[in-house]
């Protein structure tokens, strides 16, 4: 009996050249794979949502393993800060669309793979049309709206969703597939966390190797489902702590009351996931309490040039100062803002900044509660300042 998600008739249609037999020989000689299994791989179609930290190892290894069709969804352009972990892209690719460099790298790894590119954001409008062409979906996205979208779309389309996520030195992986008996993402997390409360990689950082470990686990799980081998992570969440070098796993159960995959679903079509998860950092920090007073980097520059009196407050961490700083700013890390509010000169307008504008939005909120009225969030943080005003300030 074979539990492969690829049916026999489709697998039989694959032909193998002599070159391919040599290329895949280390698979072909394993009794668990053989030519029959390699044919299943060649017949299979895998969609990677995201060609970044997780998508890089996943796509590269699946291509090398001989998956027949690889779909990649990503709208981003390669940035220098990607290269520490996203090995699909190289130094000479900076500025190119990620899917272009991904395609080049995959072709070099294995020219037999058919690569389908979707240089767009994965949205409620295109998700079902894209997913229907694939047997397995790999969630290598980097934000909650896309994670809920990818899970819901896979539930509706009855496709396994192989989940991975990373935070600094920690990673998690599992397989969501209610149609195979497991839970979906919503069974675990029915509601998203308060918008902006959970930092992403750009805000929190991530050990470059970590998405390599987790992404390769996702690739292995995809191959196991295609070959019908072993015990999948269906119903188990694997947590990896790189600092302790420990794996821990937790059993997951389907929630019979899940609004998407439960017995009486209340959500039967894709939603507006940005809205569901709460949209911008500004809205995040205010928790929906209305727009936060803010100014643009251009406006800050204008005021500095005009020597308008103002207090510039930097709420980043001390170790970020040596990466980049704006002259004349006072440093009070976000965690100390509440206790040290008395040190801030409130006679002048106070402009608060951080790296990208999320922490500073929270600081503005804290200080408003402490009675500050003439206080503004610098939109886009020091990163926007560097990009749009002063290129001498390094970006990080």
């Amino acid at each position: 009996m074979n539990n492969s998600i690829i049916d026999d008739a489709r697998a039989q249609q694959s032909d193998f050249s002599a070159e391919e037999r040599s290329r895949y020989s280390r698979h072909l000689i394993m009794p668990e794979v053989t030519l029959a299994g390699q044919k299943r791989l060649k017949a299979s179609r895998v969609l990677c949502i995201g060609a970044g930290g997780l998508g890089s190892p996943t796509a590269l290894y699946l291509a090398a393993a001989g998956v027949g069709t690889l779909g990649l969804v990503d709208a981003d352009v390669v940035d220098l800060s990607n290269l520490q972990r996203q090995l699909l892209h190289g130094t000479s690719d900076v500025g190119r669309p990620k899917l272009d460099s991904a395609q080049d790298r995959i072709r070099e790894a294995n020219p037999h793979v058919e690569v389908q590119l979707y240089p767009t954001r994965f949205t409620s409008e295109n998700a079902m049309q894209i997913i229907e062409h694939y047997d397995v979906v790999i969630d290598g996205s980097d934000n909650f709206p896309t994670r809920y979208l990818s899970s819901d779309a896979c539930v509706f389309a009855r496709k396994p969703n192989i989940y991975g996520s990373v935070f600094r030195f920690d990673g998690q992986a599992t397989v969501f597939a209610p149609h195979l008996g497991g839970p979906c993402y919503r069974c675990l997390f029915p509601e998203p966390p308060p918008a902006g409360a959970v930092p992403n990689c750009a805000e929190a950082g991530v050990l470059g190797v970590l998405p390599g470990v987790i992404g390769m686990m996702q690739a292995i799980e995809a191959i196991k489902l295609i070959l019908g081998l072993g015990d999948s992570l269906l119903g188990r969440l694997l947590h990896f702590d790189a600092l302790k070098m420990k794996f821990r796993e937790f059993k997951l159960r389907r929630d019979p009351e899940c609004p998407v995959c439960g017995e009486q679903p209340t959500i039967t079509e894709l939603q507006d996931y940005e809205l569901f998860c709460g949209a911008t950092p500004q809205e995040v920090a205010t928790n929906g309490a209305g727009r936060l007073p803010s100014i643009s980097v251009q406006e800050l520059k204008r005021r500095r040039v005009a020597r308008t009196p103002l207090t510039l407050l930097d709420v980043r961490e001390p170790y970020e100062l040596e990466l980049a700083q704006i002259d004349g700013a006072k440093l009070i890390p976000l965690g100390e803002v509440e206790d040290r509010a008395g040190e801030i000169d409130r006679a002048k307008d106070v402009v608060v900044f951080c790296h990208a504008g999320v922490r500073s939005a929270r600081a503005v909120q804290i200080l408003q509660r402490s009675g500050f009225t003439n206080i503004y969030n610098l939109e886009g943080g020091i990163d926007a300042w560097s990009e749009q005003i002063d290129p001498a300030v390094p970006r990080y």
Partner: protein
Amino acid sequence: MNLRVQFFSHLKDVTGSDEFHAHVPEGASVADLLTVVYGQHPKLRSWDSSILVGAGVEFVDRDYLLKEGDEIALMPPVQGG
């Protein structure tokens, strides 16, 4: 009974530590334990609705009755990729 509570991922930042040793009475539930944990780490309270609680090798509901020696894990959702 004494229980070791581990904080995962971002909750380490929120609490400023990676574990907490809690003392709860026999027959206490996860909800009782969380009350003790939140008492020590008040900032965690706002995360309550998104925290998964692992006891040993299972994620459990808030009414799960704790057993001596249960290794408790508090895990937030993680988005990074």
